[in-house]
């Protein structure tokens, strides 16, 4: 667009300057929109687990960001020792995280749900898990930043004036694929429907011969498994250190609530909406306003539609 304007050599200077300004603004707008969508895909990758555990199972798993950091550090460990790509690593470790999640849920169930204790006590359990994971990561990996070596992390795809770094594009695709797979699983399989039913009518589920505790255990395991995928996506975008997970607590719950509790498509839509809002605000207003705009959208949406964008009314 800029070279075209330079070609208009005979136009008066002020017209040229004005066209240059408009051209710059349009370039910035295009890049901000694309970056925002990419960022949103990543937010979906790290939030889908919360959409399952909090949105569908009513378990406020505050430690989910710590599980994401654990996934990032596992990706770093395997990448630095054996040179495997983070995309392959996340597929290898996801089942292990699933088993970990199932184990965590079993402990949570024994301590809280089986005793019908106040769910807020469970919050303290997950806070504790968050801090313990944080400290264990520091003990094992140290407090320094850790990154991965890949052939594509510095590559940028250019489409005209829009540049898309692969380190954002790949996490975007991870996010979209994870959400799509979860959506299909939860809506097209018997077990997925059982997960949706377990928080609404556990007794009805029992009458159908399905153990709701087992369903919740496996579903929780799935949510933690997605943390492995989110962690791999995160370490592709930026180097990580153990305390970084705490920065994501507010964000992942905001995406879950904004999208509508338990709605996978809502999670993706909300994540992209927040990503675009942050990116546009960063570019045209100032980055310090991004959280205010993002959470302003959340508050406005909840005021207008308390169940979230795609939650059931």
């Amino acid at each position, binding site marked *: 667009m800029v070279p075209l304007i330079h070609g208009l050599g005979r136009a008066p200077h002020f017209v040229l300057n004005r066209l240059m300004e408009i051209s*710059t603004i349009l*370039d*910035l707008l295009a*890049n*901000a929109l694309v*970056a*925002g969508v*990419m*960022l949103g895909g*990543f937010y979906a990758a790290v939030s889908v687990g919360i959409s399952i555990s909090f949105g569908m199972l009513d378990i406020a798993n505050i430690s989910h960001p710590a599980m994401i950091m654990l996934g990032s550090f596992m990706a770093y460990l395997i990448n630095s020792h054996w040179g495997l790509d983070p995309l392959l690593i996340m597929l290898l470790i996801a089942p292990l995280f699933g088993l970990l999640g199932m184990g965590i849920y079993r402990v949570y169930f024994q301590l809280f749900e089986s005793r019908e204790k106040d769910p807020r006590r469970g919050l303290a359990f997950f806070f504790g898990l968050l801090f313990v994971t*944080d*400290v264990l990561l*520091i003990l*094992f*990996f*140290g*407090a*320094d*930043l*850790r*990154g991965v070596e890949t052939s594509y992390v*510095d590559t*940028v795809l250019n489409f005209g004036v829009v*540049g898309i*770094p692969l*380190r*954002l594009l790949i996490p975007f695709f991870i996010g979209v694929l994870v959400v799509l797979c979860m959506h299909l699983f939860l809506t097209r399989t018997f077990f997925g429907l059982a997960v949706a039913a377990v928080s609404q009518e556990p007794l009805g589920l029992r009458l159908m011969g399905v153990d709701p505790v087992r369903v919740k255990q496996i579903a929780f395991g799935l949510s933690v498994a997605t943390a492995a995928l989110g962690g791999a996506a995160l370490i592709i*975008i*930026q*180097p*990580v*250190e*153990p*305390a*970084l997970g705490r*920065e*994501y607590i507010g*964000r992942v719950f905001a995406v879950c609530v904004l999208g509508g509790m338990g709605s996978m498509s809502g999670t993706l839509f909300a994540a992209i909406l927040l990503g675009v809002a*942050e*990116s*546009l605000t*960063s*570019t*045209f207003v*100032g*980055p*310090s306003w*991004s*959280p205010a705009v993002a959470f302003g959208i959340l508050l406005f949406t909840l005021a207008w539609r308390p169940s979230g964008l795609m939650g059931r009314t």
Partner: protein
Amino acid sequence: MTSASHPSRRQVMLALPAATAMVYSGSGFGQTGPIKFGGTLPLTGGNASIGKVAQATMQLWLDDVNKRGGLLGRKVELMIYDDQTNPTLTPGLFTKLLDIDKVDMLVGTGTNLIAPAMPLVIERKKLMMGNLALGLNDQFKYDKYFQMMAYGPNGKDELARGFFEVAAKLTPRPQTVALVGADSEFANNALEGARNHAKRLGFRVVYDKSYPPNQVDFSSVVRAIAAVKPDLIFAGSYVADSSGLIRAAAEIKLKATMFGGAMVGLQVAALKQQLSGVINGLVNYELYLPEPSMQFPGIKEMIARYRAATAGQGLDALGFYVPPTTYAQMQVLEQAITATKTLKDDVLAEYIHKTTFKTVAGDVKFEAGGEWAEPRILMTQFQKVNGKELGQFDQPGTQVILYPEKFKSGNIITPYPIGG
């Protein structure tokens, strides 16, 4: 005639030498226990990378001083509590250190995290030897506070001074500057100094914005900066942000006469290795570099021992950023206690104020506010970084010192990036 409750004259005479030895064996009557140095460090949380390195360095000093017989004939102990990079925890931790642990000396290396504990320290009239804290004593004006990072009396201005002084000497002279930083105390202080220097030297500010500490993607920020085409770009950022800004700058092929400033993280091995050649051309602050102009007595040996002691612990593998000033802060206390033969805070503070200390970080003299009398924030440029081998950073010329003149070891190469 004697009994258990009435010792004989002979028994008293026999006990007298032992009692005398007890009185004169320490710094005071009955003071034969260890000397306790206590403080807080961020061992977890966002500043853990600084805190754990500082702890390892303090341990190094502790081993050294105890091998030499301790201080005042007494063994030295170190009691460090984790403030979790949470300043609200420091008052409680310092209360414990003073009231329960009854430490003799207070130390801290954790940026401005110890600020909330300062009223307690002042109330108890304790000497406080801090490190990496910017402008902490500006409001308190406490005469027993000392700070080891070489900010000098005007800390907020000093972090940015070198960047703008170097820029002002370029030909052609840059005209515009973009300022960007994290929305946090350190970065805000750095940007405040940058604004002062920009105004003083006549640079026009064309972009001046902050980003939230949890910013993930910096491409929008960097594109917005690129759109205003600044000659200079000054950034005040923390470790993860520095990585994000530099990567985004490389991706959009950002060009400027100078880029850098107060980007934390570029001083340690992890980020230097990860970013590698991408950082060539960046002009950024440092506290120490192994350039010929900075070969202080004992520094090479101390860094070598630090590296050996921390190998495999996931800490900064180079040891140029935190270890020199941390070791030096302990040396200052050691030398002051040895010279004055006391642990009294008043006497030590008075001695520290009037003395020039020989440390691994060079000669150190403090001014009335407890800061270095002569600031020494280096402004450096990465010029020959190639690959991920850490040994290159031990070689002179990989990263040269541009400012201050006293330590200058090379000339700036413009524009940024080098060869771009």
